[in-house]
């Protein structure tokens, strides 16, 4: 079953009179449970495609479906409603709220979804355990290492039980051991929970974890390869 699908999606940024084409007629379908890498050099359109898949942005033309719902022309609040509970995000810059503890950062999507306090507590502790940070629950982001922050971000992305998690260069700001650990955690959670992961990267060591690799070049899909067995050697 398709979690997300694009059909002839283009995205053009206009600054003054200058138009920049970030994506050109991209059609892509991501099935439930995939662990897919979007690869390509800088400026190839990976992040733009990820933003459209994540309902953060709207295509200039073409259509995007998430869980069968056309989200191409939704307004800001409708898109927020789609994201909440359906899509989790992991960003390159760790993207935690600095005033909140690790526990509270993970709890935030659950609060937005209106979960009861007892449900929240149970879910947050379960996720912090899954990423190995139970003992860091009360630490704020500035008291955590980069790798730990990114693990909190993974836990937060998983909190509302989303059907899709989008990660934009999740290991770009991490050293090799931490990058490997993050990819292993993502891969394990994909396997254990069945949640779909799509991550943008140009790091060959990360790509090796993917079971499907979609390559982008100049805003076009240049190849789409399904890999039978991932070979995680980072």
């Amino acid at each position, binding site marked *: 079953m398709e979690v997300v699908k694009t059909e002839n999606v283009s995205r053009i940024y206009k600054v003054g009179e200058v138009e920049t084409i970030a994506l050109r007629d991209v059609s892509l379908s991501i099935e439930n449970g995939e662990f897919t890498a979007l690869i390509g050099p800088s400026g190839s359109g990976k992040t733009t495609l990820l933003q459209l898949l994540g309902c*953060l*942005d709207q295509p200039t033309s073409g259509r995007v479906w998430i869980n069968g719902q056309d989200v191409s022309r939704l307004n800001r*609040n409708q898109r927020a409603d789609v*994201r909440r509970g359906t899509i989790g995000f992991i960003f390159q810059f760790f*993207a*935690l*709220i600095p005033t909140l503890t690790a526990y509270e950062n993970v709890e*935030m999507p659950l*609060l*937005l979804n209106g979960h009861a306090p007892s449900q929240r507590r149970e879910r947050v502790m379960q996720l912090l355990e899954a990423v190995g940070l139970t003992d860091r629950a009360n630490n704020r982001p500035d008291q955590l290492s980069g790798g730990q922050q990114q693990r909190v971000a993974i836990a937060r992305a998983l909190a509302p039980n989303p059907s899709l998690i989008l990660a934009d260069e999740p290991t770009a700001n991490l050293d090799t051991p931490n990058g490997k650990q993050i990819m292993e955690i993502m891969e394990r959670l994909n396997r254990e929970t069945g949640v779909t992961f799509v991550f943008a990267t140009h790091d060959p060591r990360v790509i090796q974890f993917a079971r499907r690799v979609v390559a982008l070049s100049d805003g076009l899909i240049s190849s789409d390869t399904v890999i039978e067995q991932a070979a995680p050697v980072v």
Partner: protein
Amino acid sequence: MLQLFKLAFRNLGRNRRRSFFSALALGMGLAILLLMASVLDGEMRQAMEGTIRLQSGHLQVRASTYNEDRTSLAWEDLIEKPDEMARKIASLEPVAAATPRLFASGIAMSGDKSQGVRVIGIDPASAANEPYIKGLVNGEFLKSDDRDGILIGLPLAEKFDLNVGDRLSLLINTSDGSVDTQNFVIRGIYSTRTTPYDKSTVFLTLAKAQAITRTENHASIIFILLKDRAQTEAVVNALQAGSLQVKTWMQMNELVLQTEQFADAYMIVLFLIVLAITATVIVNTLVMAVFERTREIGILSAIGMRSSRIMAMFFAESVLLGIGGIVIGLILGGLMVVYAANIGFYIGNMGVSGMLLGDRIYAHLTLGDTITLTITALVVALLAALYPALLAARMEPVQALHGGKK
């Protein structure tokens, strides 16, 4: 909701100094407004109370033809047998005091100095004389059988360099249109701390004033003080004045009432200026916060926070700033008002004709003003958050995640 305020509180705690100064700005604004409102209220209250106690009373009964501006002494313009009428009026339950008074114009003279004065004939036994009895700075108050005693104000005594026991010559109009002159012995010197009034008002006993003005058994008015001014209309209805006219304190003190209305309008303008300055500080603080936290706004939006909730977050910060500011404002303002209510502000000789004001203003803060201004301060804090909150809520998540660029 609790989580929202928890987040807002922590956000304010990121830059404690800036948050404190923003709350302080609101607090100082509120404190200034409380002081201004209390001083204005005190001033207007004193002006009205002073004018009622010294000049108009709550009610006056006059002959229908009596003209206050001319200080007429013609018998047809005066009240006949005023003692009897005053006694009847005094027997009414809401009336605190009712006493006949006779007004005449004259010139006080001593040596080569002279001063135009208003001569008031009073019943020395009346409770309505309290401001002069309490205000005695030297000598004693007039007695009912005093035939050559006079009570003069401190500024007049100083001008003439006179003291108790000295003699003062009084040239006074009479009912037949002529003038009479007589020497009086100064029995007492009073001060109501209202210089223009004290300088130009002298008192004789009613009997002596009637004798010298040849208005035998007549008075200009019955001066009435009520226990509660809210009873005014009820007493007017009970007086059944017939051929006489009854004037209320509101009719007699239109100038004070108009001044109060003008002052209220003037204060609203000042309030708006102070509040606008305060609001600008809060807007500035929150706009800076929005720009500093653009990426966080993007993150919250990315994980599904709706625009309304992002706005609510900034409103919550503003409410907390507002509450902090109100606490500071109530403490600072309270201290200033306590000082102004007890020590007062010396304003010197500020009384104008028709509005008697002491030389010192004492603040008077009402609960109503305090509540109104406190709520206003909170509303201003909320209104100030509107623009920054909209700014945050309208950010596109993609741009916000890139720190506002792209």
